[in-house]
C-alpha cells in the first residue's frame, strides 16, 4: 500500500469532498447525525421564510443571509466528513484495481489426479484446492497445503521485498491478490469470495462498514440530549417573548438554535473517528473494529512476547565456558563439530563465534563420515555421530542424563556452577558433551535485546501502561532480560494457556490488555485480549482471532497504536469542550439581540457592544459555521498527545480548549460584526 498511498490532500480529493458534501445533504444521510439534522431542518425553515419574504416584497436580506450560513454550516460539516473519508476512498480504489479478476486453477479430483480446471476466482468456495504457479496471482485467501514459494505481498503491505510462504508452521497463510514470484503452491481456500482479506481491507479503509465505537455512541447521545434541551429552550422562547410582547421570528429562533446546539463537535465527530482509523492505516495497521482503536487508547497492560518483540528473534553464542580440567580449545572444537549439521541461527552463531576465536574446520577437520543428529523435542539434543565418537549439545538435564547413561561420573554441581551465572545474566546455557570425555563445558547463548527498546518502554510507562514480558525461559533468564529491556514485569516459563490465564486475570482486575502475536497457539489469547495485534505474517487462525493486523509485522507497533487511540479520544474531548464553551459567548450575542426591541433594557446584556440585533445574530451564525471549517485540520490531524501525568495533560487541554473555547467566540463574533457593518451587509 505504501506505494499507492495518498500522501497529501491533493486538489482532486478536495473536489471530490465538495461534491460529496452536497450529496450528503440527503435527509436520510443527514438523519444519522441528530445535531446536523436539526441544523438542516433549521436551514430549510429559514429558506422557506426567505422565499416568503421575497414573495411578499419584504426586506429579505437578513433571512437570506441567515439561511445561507445555516446551509454552509451543514455543508462544512459534510465536507469535513467527506474529506476524512476521501483519503480512504482513494486508497480503496487503488486496492480495488490491484484485485484483478484473477483466474484460478482448481484441482478437480485431488489426490487422485493432478488435473485442474480454469475457473474465475469468484467461483471458489472454502475447501477448494487450487494451484498457483510462478507469476500467478493468488485467487483467494487460503492456507498453503503443499510447497513453498516467494510471494510478493506488496499489493497489500506495500513492502516490496518478497516473503516466503510454505506449508505447515506459522508461515502458511496466503492472501488473495498477492503474487507468487517463484515455484508453485497448492493452496486450500479458506474464505468465501467477497469476504476475503482484501475485500475486508477495502471495506475498512473506505469506511463503508464503519460502526460507531462505544465512546462515540455515548458522545452522540450526549450531543443529542443537549440538542433536545436547547430545542426546548428555543421553542419556549416564543411564548416567553409573547408574554413580554415581543414576537420572535422563526428565522431568529432557528439561528439561535443552531448557535446553541453543539454543532462544532456534532459536525466534526464523524470526521474525527474516520481520521483516527485513517492514521492507523497510514501506519500500515488495519483495525478490524473501531472498538479496538478506542480500546487501544485505554490499554492498561501490554503483553509482549520476548522473542522477536523485545529481543532479536535468535539467541547468539557469546562465550564458551569449559568445565574444570577441560581445555577451552577442546570445548570449542566439540561445539563447532556438534553445530555442523545445525542450520538454526543458534547453530550458525556457534560456528561463527568459534571462527572468531580462531577455531575453524581448517584447524579442526571433521573426522571422516559424520551423521548429523537433528534436534527433537524428545531428546532435546542435537549433535553428530561418527565412527570414532559422538558429540551432543543441548539443554542441561538432557545432556547430563545422556552423559550419565554412558557411565560418566555425575558432575552436576560443576555444570550448575557454570550455567547459573549464564541464566542470571539472561542467557541460555547449552551443554556440550562427548561420548568419550563426558561433559566438556557450556556454550553461553545470549538473547540480544533490540536496540532502542528501552526508550520505547519508558515512553509506554509515561503513558501509564504496564508492560509484561512473556517468555518460555526460566525465571532467572526472564528476570535478567526484563531488567535489561526495562519492562515492568515478566511471566517466565509461560505456556500458551498461561498467557490466556494472565489475560483473564488482568481483565478480572478491571484492566484492559493489549498483546501481539502471530502463531496459532496465540489465537485464544488474541481473541480474549482487548487489543490483539496480529502480524500479517501470522497464521490464518491468528489473523482471525485478533482485532488488528499489522501489515509490517512489527510487534512494537502496539505503542504507536496506543498513542493513536489516545489521540482519538483527546481530540473528541477537546472539541466537545470547545463546542460547549462556545455557547457562553453566543448567548451574550444572541439573547440581547432577540429582545432588545421589546425590552430596551436588554441592551445592558450586550456586553460585546455588537452594532445591532441583526448583525449580532448573523455574526454568531457565521462564527458558528466558520469555526467548523477552521477546526477541520485539527479534527483530521488530531490533537497532539504527549505522554505525561494525567493532571498535567488535563490542565493544558482545559486551558486551550475550555478557556480558549470561552474566549475565542467573543473575539470572533465581535470581529465578524465589525466586518459585517463595515461592508454594509446588514
Amino acid at each position, binding site marked *: 500500500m505504501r506505494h499507492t498511498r495518498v500522501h497529501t490532500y491533493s486538489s482532486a480529493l478536495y473536489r471530490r469532498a465538495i461534491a460529496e458534501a452536497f450529496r450528503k445533504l440527503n435527509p436520510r444521510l443527514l438523519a444519522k447525525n441528530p445535531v446536523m439534522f436539526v441544523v438542516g431542518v433549521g436551514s430549510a425553515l429559514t429558506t422557506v421564510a426567505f422565499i416568503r419574504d421575497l414573495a411578499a416584497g419584504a426586506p429579505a436580506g437578513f433571512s437570506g443571509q441567515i439561511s445561507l450560513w445555516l446551509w454552509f454550516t451543514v455543508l462544512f460539516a459534510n465536507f469535513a466528513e467527506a474529506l476524512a473519508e476521501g483519503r480512504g476512498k482513494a486508497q480503496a480504489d487503488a486496492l480495488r484495481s490491484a484485485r484483478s479478476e484473477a483466474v484460478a486453477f482448481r484441482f478437480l479430483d485431488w489426490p487422485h489426479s493432478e488435473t485442474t480446471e480454469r475457473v474465475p476466482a469468484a467461483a471458489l468456495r472454502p475447501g477448494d484446492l487450487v494451484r498457483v504457479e510462478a507469476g500467478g496471482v493468488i485467487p483467494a485467501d487460503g492456507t498453503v497445503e503443499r510447497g513453498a514459494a516467494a510471494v510478493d505481498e506488496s499489493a497489500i503491505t506495500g513492502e516490496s521485498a518478497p516473503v516466503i510462504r510454505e506449508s505447515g508452521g506459522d508461515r502458511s497463510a496466503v492472501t488473495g491478490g498477492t503474487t507468487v514470484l517463484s515455484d508453485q503452491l497448492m493452496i486450500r481456500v479458506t474464505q468465501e469470495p467477497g469476504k476475503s482479506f482484501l475485500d475486508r481491507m477495502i471495506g475498512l479503509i473506505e469506511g463503508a462498514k464503519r460502526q460507531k465505537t*462505544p*465512546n462515540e*455512541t*455515548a*458522545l452522540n*447521545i*450526549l450531543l*443529542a*440530549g*443537549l440538542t*433536545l*434541551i436547547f430545542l*426546548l*429552550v428555543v421553542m*419556549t*422562547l*416564543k*411564548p*416567553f*417573548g*409573547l*408574554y*413580554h410582547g415581543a414576537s420572535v421570528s422563526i428565522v431568529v429562533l432557528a439561528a439561535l438554535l443552531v448557535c446553541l446546539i453543539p454543532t462544532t463537535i456534532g459536525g466534526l465527530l464523524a470526521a474525527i473517528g474516520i481520521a483516527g482509523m485513517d492514521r492507523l492505516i497510514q501506519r500500515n495497521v488495519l483495525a478490524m473494529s473501531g472498538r479496538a482503536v478506542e480500546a487501544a*487508547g*485505554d490499554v*492498561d497492560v501490554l503483553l509482549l512476547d520476548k522473542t522477536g518483540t523485545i529481543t532479536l528473534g535468535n539467541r547468539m553464542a557469546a562465550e564458551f565456558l569449559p568445565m574444570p580440567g577441560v581445555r577451552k580449545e577442546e570445548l570449542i572444537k566439540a561445539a563447532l563439530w556438534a553445530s555442523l549439521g545445525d542450520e538454526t541461527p543458534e547453530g550458525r552463531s556457534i560456528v561463527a563465534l568459534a571462527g572468531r576465536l580462531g577455531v575453524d574446520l581448517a584447524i579442526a577437520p571433521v573426522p571422516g563420515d559424520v551423521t548429523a543428529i537433528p534436534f527433537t523435542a524428545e531428546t532435546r539434543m542435537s549433535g553428530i555421530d561418527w565412527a570414532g565418537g559422538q558429540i551432543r549439545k543441548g539443554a542441561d538435564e538432557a545432556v547430563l542424563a545422556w552423559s550419565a547413561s554412558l557411565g560418566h561420573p555425575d558432575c552436576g554441581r560443576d555444570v550448575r556452577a557454570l550455567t547459573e551465572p549464564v541464566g542470571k545474566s539472561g542467557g541460555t546455557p547449552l551443554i556440550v558433551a562427548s561420548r568419550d570425555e563426558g561433559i566438556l563445558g557450556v556454550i553461553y547463548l545470549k538473547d540480544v535485546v533490540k536496540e532502542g527498546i528501552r526508550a520505547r518502554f519508558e515512553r509506554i510507562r509515561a*503513558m501509564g501502561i504496564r508492560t509484561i514480558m512473556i517468555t518460555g525461559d526460566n525465571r532467572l533468564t526472564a528476570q535478567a532480560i526484563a531488567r535489561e529491556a526495562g519492562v515492568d514485569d515478566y511471566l517466565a516459563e509461560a505456556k500458551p494457556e498461561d498467557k490466556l490465564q494472565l489475560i483473564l486475570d488482568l481483565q*478480572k*482486575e*478491571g*484492566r484492559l490488555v493489549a498483546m501481539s502475536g502471530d502463531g496459532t497457539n496465540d489465537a485464544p489469547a488474541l481473541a480474549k485480549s482487548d487489543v490483539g495485534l496480529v502480524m500479517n505474517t501470522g497464521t490464518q487462525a491468528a489473523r482471525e482471532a485478533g482485532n488488528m493486523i499489522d501489515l509490517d509485522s512489527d510487534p512494537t507497533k502496539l505503542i504507536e497504536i496506543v498513542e493513536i*487511540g*489516545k489521540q482519538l*479520544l*483527546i481530540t*473528541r*474531548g*477537546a472539541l*466537545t*469542550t470547545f463546542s*460547549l*464553551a462556545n455557547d*457562553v459567548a453566543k*448567548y451574550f450575542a444572541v*439573547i*440581547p439581540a*432577540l*429582545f432588545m426591541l421589546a*425590552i430596551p*433594557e*436588554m441592551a*445592558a*446584556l450586550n456586553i460585546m457592544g455588537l452594532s445591532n440585533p441583526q448583525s449580532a445574530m448573523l455574526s454568531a451564525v457565521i462564527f458558528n459555521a466558520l469555526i467548523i471549517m477552521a477546526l477541520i485540520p485539527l479534527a483530521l490531524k488530531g490533537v497532539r498527545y504527549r505522554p505525561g*501525568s*494525567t493532571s498535567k*495533560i*488535563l*490542565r493544558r487541554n*482545559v486551558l486551550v480548549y*475550555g478557556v480558549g473555547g470561552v474566549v475565542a467566540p467573543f473575539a470572533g463574533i465581535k470581529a465578524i460584526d465589525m466586518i459585517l457593518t463595515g461592508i454594509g451587509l446588514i
Partner: protein
Amino acid sequence: MIMRDILECILFMGILAAASPFLGRFIHTVMEGDKTPLHRVLGPVEQFAYRISGIHPDREQSWRRYALSALVFSAAGFILTMAVLMFQGVLPLNPQGFSGTSWHLAFNAAASFATNTNWQSYAGETALSHFSQMVGLTYQNFVSAAVGIAACMAICRAIARNQTQVVGNFWADLVRVILYILLPLSILFAIFFISQGVVQTFLAGVDAATLEGGRQYIALGPAASQTAIKLLGTNGGGFFNANAAHPFENPTALSNFFQCLAMLLIPSSLVFTFGEIVKNRRHAWTIWCIMAAVFIFGVLAAALAEQGGTVMLAEAAGGSVPNLEGKEARFGVFGTALFATAATATSCGAVNAMHASFTPLGGLVLLFNMLLGEIIFGGAGSGLYGMILFMVLTVFIAGLMVGRTPDYLGKRIQAREVTWCMVALLIPAMLILGLSAVAAATEWGRAGLLNAGTHGFSEILYACASCAQNNGSAFAGLKADTPVWNVSLGAAMLMGRFGVMCSMMAAAGSMAARSIRPKSEYSFPVEGATFGALTLAVIFVVGALTYLPALSLGPVVECFQMTAGRVF
C-alpha cells in the same frame, strides 16, 4: 456588608464543615448495618419493625426492585395523604373544625409532601386540621426525606460496588434512615427550638384581646417538632403559613442561625457518607468545596444585593439603605439572605421573608439556586445524586481529554450512563421551561399573577422551578390554589422527583454491573481544584445556561429595568 456578617458566614460554614464529616461517617455506619451507641436503645425497635413488616435487611434488591419499592412506598403515602386531606372534616384531632379540602388542593398537597417539595397552595393554620398536619406534614416530612436518602445511598453503593446487580434493601434503608438519623436529630433540634421559644402544644390556639381593643386569633400547635424535621429533611412546609418568618416558628436570631444549619446538615453530611462508601475522602471534600463555594457566593451575592437596596429606596431615603421590605427585623439582611440561600440551595424551601420582595438580583440568586437542580447541598439525598449527575457528565466530557475512556471512580461512563444522565437533565428542563411557557402564554397562567411584566414572569418561573426541582418555596405573588395550577404543579413535582430519581438509579444500576477499573496516577483525577473548577464549569454551561434566556427575561432584565426606574 459588615464585618459581623462575614464572621457569621465563616462561623456558619466552619460549624458545617466540622460537623458534616462526623455525621457523614455515622450515617455510613448506620447504613452499613453496623452497630452504633444508638443501637442499644433503638436496636430492638429496628428488629421489631423488621419483624412486623416482614423485612429481611440482608436480602438485597436490584436497582429496578429498589426503585420500584421506593415508588410503591411513595405512591401509598401519596394516596394516604390525599385521602386524609379530603376527609379531614370527619377525622379526629380537628379542634378548629376544618372541612375537607378540594380534590385538586389535596392532589397538589399530597404530591408536594410525597416528593419532599412541600409547596403549599394553602395556609397551614387556617386550612389544615392537626391530624392533617401530622399525617401530611410530620409523617411525610420524615418518610419523603428518608426515601430521598435511601435512593441516594443505593446510588452511592451502586457506584462503589464491583460487578453486581444488587444495591441494597430499600425497606431496611428506610427504617434505618428514619430511626437512627432523622428521629434523633429531630428530637435534638426540636428541644433546642423549644428553648428558643418555638411553640409545641396540641391546643387549638387562643383568642387574644389586642391593645387596640380588637380580637385576634393566635394559632398554636405542635410547631417545634415539625419545624425540626421540616428543616432537617429539607421539606420546608411550615406549620404556619408565614413559615419561618412567624415568631412562633423562628423566634430569635440564634434559632434562625441553627435553622439554616439544620437545612444544610444532612445534605452536607451525605457527601462524606459517599466519601466513605467509595473510600475516597478527598473526593468527598472536593464535592463539599464545590457546593460550599457556590453556596457562599450565593449568600454573599444575595446579602450584597439586599444590603445595597434599590435606586428608589435610595432616592426616598436620601442615601443608600438596605432593602428590608418583606424581611423580619430580628433576622436583618444577612440572616435573611443566609436563610433564603440555604432554603433554595437545599430543596428545603422554607422561607423567613417574602422572596418576592427581594431585589431582582437577590431574587435571581434564589431562582438560580433552584434552576441549577438543587445540587448545592440540595435535598436530603436528592442533592447528592443530582451532583453525581453533573460529575458524571464532567468526567465524560473532560475525561476524554486525557486520552482514556472516561471513568467515574473506576466505572466507565458509556452509552447507558450518558443516556440516563441526559434523561435526568431533560426532565426538570422540560417541566420548568414547558410549564412556564404554557403559563406565560395562556390566560389561566397569567390570571394568578399579582404583578405584571418581568416581575410577573419571575413569579411564574419561580413557581415552576420550585415545584419541578422539589424546592417548595414560593416567590409569593402567584395565587396557585386553582385547579389548573394545582394539578400541573403537582404533576411537575411528581415527575421532577421520581423521574430524576429513577433515571439516576438506572444510571447507577448500569454502573454497578461494570467492573471497577483500578485507580492509578493516570486515572482521571476527581479530587482537587482542577476537577472542582471543571465540575463548576459544566454545572454552569450545561445546567445553568439552559435557563439563561428565561432568566434574562425575568430577574436579569428586571434588574436593568429597575435601575432605569421601571417597576411593576
